[in-house]
C-alpha cells in the first residue's frame, strides 16, 4: 500500500467583520436595511432617517461635551491618538500607507493640544473706551454636518478640529472600511457616545438631508468634489443660515492653520461695568 | 416731620438681606467634605446612626394596605436576621395609608410621618390642604411633611408662603411639622437659603429638601446650605430646627457623606434622629448590606435582605 501523504491542516475560517454605522456610541445597521458592496464586504448604506437619528444623537451629546473642561477634551483626543497608534497595522491592512497613518496620528495629537489654547489665541480682553470689563471668548457652534474626504488623513483632518472645541459631528464618510475602523477606535477612547457619528453610504444621497436640516448648525463640504453639488448644498444650507466650509482643502499634510477650528466657533463678548 | 415706621415684619427685605451663597464655593466645600474617609469603628457607628435616621418612605399611586404593612414591619425590624440592628426613625406615607401604618406601628416607637397639603405639587386651595393635614393627624400621624407653595415663593409672595405654613402648623396640632422646600424647583442656592429661613421663621420643626417627585432631589450642597441656615437660625433665635434631605440618597457612602456634613457644619447637636432624617427607601438595604459586611468581613448580596 503506498504511504499516503499527511492530510493538510484544516483551513481556519475567518470571522468576517460586519460594517455598520456608528451612531450615539453604538453600531446599528441602517434603518433602511440596505447595504452596498465594498471589496466583497456588505457595508451599511445610510438613509436620510439614519442621518436624522445621527443628528439627534449629536445634539443630545453636545451640551455635555461642550461643558467638559478643555483639559478633559484634550485628553480624550490624545487617547484617540493612542488608540490609532495601537492599531496601525489594521489601517495599513486596509491600504492606508504607513506615513499617512503616522501623519493622521500626529494630526490628532496636534489637535488634542488645541483644546485648552484656542481660547487664548482666538479670544481675549478688549480695551473698550469706558469703565467696562469686556471679554471675547470662543464657543462651539453646536452640531456640524461633515462630508469627509476620501483619505484617512482627510477624514481625521475634518473630524478633529470640529470636536476639539466642543462641537459634535455627523460625518458622511467616503472610504467606509477605514471610517468604520476609526469608529471602533473612537468607541474605545473614552469619547462620549454621540460626539462623533459616522455614516457610510452615498454622500450625494444623504448630504442634502444634512444641508437642509434645521438642527444642524454648520456644514463642512471639504469632501465634495463636484462643484455643482457643493453649490446646491451651500444654497440649501442657507435655509437656516448654517456656517459653511466650502470645499478646497486637499493638502492635509500642510499646517491646517486655525480656520478649520474657527470656522466652527462663535465668539461671545461679555460686558460688565466696573466701579464702586 | 415724624419718622416713617416700616412694618415690623418686612419679610421680603429680611430674606433679601441674608448673605448670598456662592454656588461654586458651596459645591466645592461639599465635595471636599465628601472626601473624608470614615473607617472601621467610626463607619459602624455611622451606619447604625444612619439607619436610626431613615424615614422609610413609600409615596406611590400604587400603594396598598399590603405594601404599607410590609414597609411598617421592615421599619420596626429592618434585619430579621439580626436583632441588634436598630429600627428606623419613621415611615412616611400618603394620608390614605396612615390608618394602616398606625395599626402596625402602634407602641413600637417608630414615628408615623404623613405627607399632606396636596403633596407633591401643593397646587390646591388652602382649606383642602388644611383638611388633608387634620385628617392625617386624626388618623394617627405624629409627623406631617408639608410642601410650600413654590408658585407663591417664586413670584415673591413670601407672606403668603409664611401664612400658609403657620396655618398648617395650627392644623397639625401636636404633630411635628416638616416643611418641604422642593429645592429642585427653587433655582438657586440663594433661594434655598431664603426659603429655609422663611420656613423656620414660620415655625417649622424641620426643613426638608424635596418631595422626591421632581428630577432634582436632595444634594450635598443644598443640604449644606440648609445646615448653615439652621445653625445661623439657632444662633439668632435660640431655637433648634431639624434638617431632612430626601430623594436620591441611595448608598451608605452617600449617607455617611451627609453625616460628615452635619459633623463639620453644625456638630453633635444635630447628629441625632430628632434633628436629622434621611427621606429614603432603597438606602436602608444598602445600609444593612454594609452593616453586615463590617460584621462578617465579606461583601453581601441583595438576596440576603428583605425587599420590604
Amino acid at each position, binding site marked *: 500500500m503506498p504511504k499516503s501523504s499527511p492530510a493538510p491542516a484544516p483551513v481556519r475560517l475567518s470571522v468576517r467583520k460586519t460594517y455598520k454605522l456608528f451612531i450615539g456610541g453604538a453600531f446599528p445597521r441602517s434603518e433602511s436595511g440596505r447595504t452596498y458592496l465594498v471589496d466583497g464586504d456588505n457595508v451599511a448604506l445610510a438613509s436620510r432617517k439614519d442621518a436624522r437619528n445621527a443628528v439627534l444623537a449629536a445634539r443630545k451629546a453636545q451640551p455635555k461635551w461642550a461643558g467638559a473642561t478643555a483639559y478633559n477634551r484634550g485628553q480624550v483626543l490624545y487617547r484617540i491618538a493612542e488608540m490609532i497608534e495601537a492599531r496601525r497595522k489594521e489601517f495599513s491592512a486596509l491600504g492606508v500607507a504607513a506615513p499617512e497613518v503616522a501623519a493622521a496620528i500626529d494630526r490628532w495629537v496636534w489637535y488634542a*493640544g488645541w483644546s485648552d489654547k484656542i481660547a487664548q489665541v482666538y479670544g481675549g480682553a478688549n480695551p473698550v473706551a469706558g469703565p467696562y470689563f469686556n471679554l471675547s471668548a470662543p464657543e462651539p457652534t453646536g452640531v456640524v454636518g461633515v462630508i469627509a474626504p476620501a483619505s484617512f488623513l482627510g477624514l481625521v483632518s475634518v473630524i478633529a478640529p470640529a470636536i476639539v472645541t466642543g462641537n459634535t459631528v455627523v460625518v458622511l464618510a467616503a472610504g467606509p472600511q477605514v471610517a468604520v475602523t476609526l469608529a471602533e477606535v473612537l468607541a474605545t477612547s473614552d469619547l462620549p457616545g454621540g460626539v462623533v457619528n459616522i455614516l457610510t453610504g452615498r454622500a450625494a444621497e444623504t448630504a442634502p438631508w444634512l444641508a437642509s436640516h434645521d438642527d444642524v448648525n454648520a456644514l463642512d463640504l471639504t469632501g465634495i468634489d463636484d462643484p455643482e453639488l457643493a453649490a446646491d448644498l451651500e444654497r440649501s444650507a442657507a435655509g437656516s443660515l448654517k456656517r459653511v466650509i466650502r470645499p478646497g482643502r486637499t493638502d492635509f499634510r500642510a499646517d491646517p492653520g486655525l480656520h478649520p477650528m474657527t470656522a466652527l466657533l462663535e465668539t461671545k463678548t461679555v460686558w460688565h461695568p466696573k466701579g464702586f | 416731620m415724624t419718622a416713617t415706621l416700616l412694618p415690623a415684619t418686612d419679610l421680603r427685605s429680611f430674606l433679601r438681606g441674608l*448673605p448670598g451663597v456662592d454656588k461654586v464655593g458651596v459645591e466645592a466645600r461639599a465635595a471636599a467634605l465628601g472626601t*473624608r474617609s*470614615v*473607617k472601621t*469603628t*467610626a463607619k459602624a457607628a455611622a451606619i447604625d446612626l444612619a439607619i436610626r435616621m431613615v424615614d422609610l418612605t413609600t409615596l406611590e399611586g400604587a400603594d396598598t394596605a399590603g405594601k404599607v404593612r410590609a414597609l411598617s414591619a421592615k421599619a420596626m425590624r429592618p434585619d430579621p436576621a439580626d436583632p441588634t440592628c436598630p429600627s428606623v426613625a419613621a415611615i412616611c406615607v400618603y394620608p390614605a395609608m396612615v390608618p394602616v401604618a398606625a395599626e402596625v406601628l402602634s407602641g413600637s416607637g417608630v414615628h408615623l410621618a404623613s405627607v399632606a397639603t396636596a403633596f407633591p405639587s401643593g397646587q390646591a386651595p388652602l382649606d383642602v390642604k388644611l383638611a388633608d393635614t387634620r385628617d392625617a393627624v386624626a388618623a394617627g400621624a405624629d409627623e406631617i411633611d408639608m410642601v410650600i407653595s413654590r408658585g407663591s415663593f417664586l413670584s415673591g409672595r413670601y407672606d403668603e408662603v409664611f401664612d400658609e405654613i403657620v396655618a398648617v402648623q395650627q392644623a397639625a396640632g401636636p404633630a411635628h411639622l416638616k416643611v418641604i422646600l422642593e429645592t429642585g424647583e427653587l433655582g438657586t442656592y440663594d433661594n434655598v437659603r431664603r426659603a429655609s429661613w422663611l420656613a423656620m421663621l414660620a415655625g417649622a420643626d424641620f426643613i426638608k429638601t424635596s418631595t422626591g417627585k421632581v428630577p432634582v432631589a436632595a444634594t450635598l450642597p443644598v443640604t449644606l446650605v440648609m445646615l448653615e441656615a439652621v445653625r445661623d437660625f439657632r444662633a439668632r433665635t435660640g431655637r433648634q430646627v431639624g434638617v431632612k434631605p430626601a430623594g436620591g440618597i441611595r448608598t451608605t457612602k452617600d449617607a455617611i457623606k451627609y453625616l460628615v456634613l452635619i*459633623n*463639620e457644619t453644625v456638630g*453633635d447637636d444635630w447628629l441625632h434622629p430628632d434633628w436629622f432624617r434621611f427621606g429614603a427607601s432603597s438606602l436602608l438595604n444598602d445600609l444593612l448590606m454594609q452593616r453586615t459586611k463590617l460584621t462578617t468581613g465579606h461583601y453581601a448580596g441583595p438576596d440576603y435582605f428583605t425587599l420590604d
Partner: protein
Amino acid sequence: MFAYAPAPESRSIVDLAPSYGLFIDGRFTDAHDSFKTVNPASEEVLAEVAAAGPEDVDRAVAAARRAFEPWSALPGAERAKYLFRIARIIQERARELAVLESLDNGKPIKESRDVDLPLVAAHFFYYAGWADKLAYAGFGADPRPLGVAAQVIPWNFPLLMLAWKIAPALAAGNTVVLKPAETTPLSALFFADICRQADLPPGVVNIITGAGDTGRLLVEHPDVNKVAFTGSTEVGRAIARSVAGTGKRVTLELGGKAANIVFDDAAIDQAVEGIVNGIFFNQGHVCCAGSRLLVQESAYDQVLDSLKRRMATLRVGDPLDKNTDIGAINSAAQLARIRELSEIGAAEGAERWSPPCELPAQGFWFAPTIFTGVTQAHRIAREEIFGPVLSVLTFRTPDEAVEKANNTPYGLSAGIWSEKGSLILAVADKLRAGVVWANTFNKFDPTSPFGGYKESGYGREGGRHGLEAYLA
C-alpha cells in the same frame, strides 16, 4: 464631633532607595558630598542625597548644552510627544508621587493627591500641546528657544514647581538643569526616572541636588542662557544682581503678603472657606497665601465668629492620614521662623488665637493661628511668615481696602469677596497684584498665567504668557 478613625494612605507604594546621586546626561552619577532629607512629620531620615559641587554643576550645564542642539532641532511635534509621554507617566504614577511628596514635604496626602499631582500632569499636558504651535503663540512666526535654562525651585510645592519650570522650557526647545530645594529633593529625583521611562534624550533634563551654594553656582554659571527662580525675595534680589550685565534672561517668582479682602456683602460662608483655604492650605507655605485678612468693619463680628468656628474643625496631624487638613511644617528652620514672628506679633500687641489643637510630639508642627487687632504698622502685617498664621486688619470703604492692600512692597496675589460684580471688577482693576481671585482663592491652572508685581518678582508662569520666558 464624631471621630473618623485613622485612615492612613499606605506608604508601601513608594520604593525609596537609601541614597540618590545626581541625574546628569540621562544617568544617575555620584558626587563627593551628600546630605540627608527627612520626613518633617516624624524627623525620620528618608534618604541620603548627593550635594552637587562646582565640577558637578559644570558637567550638568555641559550636558544640557550638548543636548540643546539636537533637542531644539527636533520638530515641535516630536518634542510634544515626549512631553505627552511624561504627562501620561505622571498620571499613571500619580499615587506613588503624591505619597512621596507628602513624606518629603509634610503636606497632607489629600492635597498632594487632589491638588499637586493633578496639576503637575496637567502642566505637562498643556505645554506639550504648545511645542508644535509656537507660531501661534503671539511671539513671532518662528520663535526660537534660548538655550540652557538654570532653574532653582522651592520646597513648598516641589513637583509642581518643577512642572511649572520644566514643561514650558522643554516645549519651547530649551534644555534644563534644575536644582530642587534641599529639604525636598526626592520628587525631582523620581521625575528623573520618569524622564528615563519616557526615553527623553539624555541631557535634556538634568537634576542636581544641593543647597544654597549649588543654586548659586548654577545660576552664576557662564554657559547658562536663562535663569528661572522661585523662592524668597532676598535670594531673588541677589540673583537679579548677579545676572546684571550678562546676557542671561531671568524670571523670578518671589514672596508675597497678599490681602484677602472681605466686603460686608460677601457670601459669608464661602468667604470664610476662602480665608481658611487662603492661609491654611499647604500649611500656609504658599507665596500667594492670603496672609492678611482685610475685613470690612461692618462685617467684622460675623466674619470672625464664623472663621473661628470653622477653624475648630481643622485637623492637624499625620500627613499620610487621608483626613488630615494641615500637615507638618517643612523644616526646623521654618518652624523657628514662624514661632519667632508669632512671638513678635504678640509682643507688638496683636491678639493671638488658635483653636484647641493636639500636636504630635515628634516632627515640626504649628497650630493654625490668627492675630486680630493687627494694623499696617505691625511687622506681622508686612513680613512674610510663610506659615499657618493669619493677620486680621479692618477697613471701612473700598478705597481704604485698596489702599491697604497695595501698601506693601509685594504684589503677588489678592482676594476679593463680594456679591457685587461692579465692585469686584473695579477693585480688581486697582489692585497691584499679578493674580486676583474674586470669590475664590488659591486656584491654579496650567492655562492661567501666574506671577507678581513689584518685589514679588517678574515674569509669568502658565498660559500662553508662560512661553515668553523661554523664547528668544
